[in-house]
């Protein structure tokens, strides 16, 4: 069995609209078996009104297309609600897969969680 988990962590930062930035930490292997868990976590974020999302791949060892599909499925609904999915801290092996499919054109993929959070807060006058 692939081991995978995703955990939700509200961040202190807020964007210009005052919306809180939230971090999803991915751990383990994201494949066709575990993609459903990631999907459920993103759906819960949406349901709870969290749409300023940073997905941290610091502990993500592996990703297959099923995992990439989840990003694709959620980026539009999230953006429609004024939010975004920023991707941070990917290990080179995992980044390579995103890169092969041209995801850097569609997603903000940044090195550090901090940089991802800043993308939300920069230019904002309110919080952070």
């Amino acid at each position, binding site marked *: *069995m*692939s*081991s995978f988990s995703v955990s939700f962590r509200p961040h202190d930062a807020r964007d210009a609209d005052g919306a809180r930035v939230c971090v999803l930490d991915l751990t383990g*292997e994201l*494949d*066709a*078996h575990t993609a459903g868990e990631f999907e459920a976590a993103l759906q819960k974020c949406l349901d709870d009104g969290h749409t300023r999302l940073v997905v941290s791949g610091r502990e993500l060892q*592996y990703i*297959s*297309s*099923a995992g*990439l*599909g*989840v990003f*694709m*499925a959620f980026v539009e609904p999230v953006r429609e609600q004024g939010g975004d999915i920023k991707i941070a801290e990917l290990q080179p*092996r995992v980044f*390579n*897969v995103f890169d*092969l*499919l041209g995801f850097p054109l569609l997603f903000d993929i940044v090195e550090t969680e901090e940089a991802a959070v800043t993308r939300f807060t920069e230019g904002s006058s309110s919080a952070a």
Partner: protein
Amino acid sequence: MPRCAPHLTIPSRTSQLARVRRRVACWAEEAGLAERAAQALQLAVDEACANAIEHGYGGRPDGRVEVEVTFREDAVTVVVRHRGDPYDPERYQPPELRGMLEGHRVHGYGLHLMHRLVDEIAFRRHDGASEVALTQRRNGRDT
């Protein structure tokens, strides 16, 4: 040098994919593939097995997927074989059509990835079985 059996049959469940990946890692090491080529092969085989499970057997867990390695002097080939549906034109639509029809577009990356990941990819239908053969050369590209 590790030794791992050259043939693996799994039930058509995605929970088996991790097992397949571990076996492929072992084969890649045995073949002396460079790390990047090994990881690429592992991912390509994962995608092929996931397609067999999800498209070939339509998610039914009672099918079998065979995964088999062949070592050659200059290359290693992994064949993924299933006996479920071959392409089902009624069910399978090119991404654009599905996109227009469903609005959502979350499929279709696996195949593109496979093409990018290995030096050679072959699709074959034979005697009711559908096969994908994924070949990585020992001194191949380093994507």
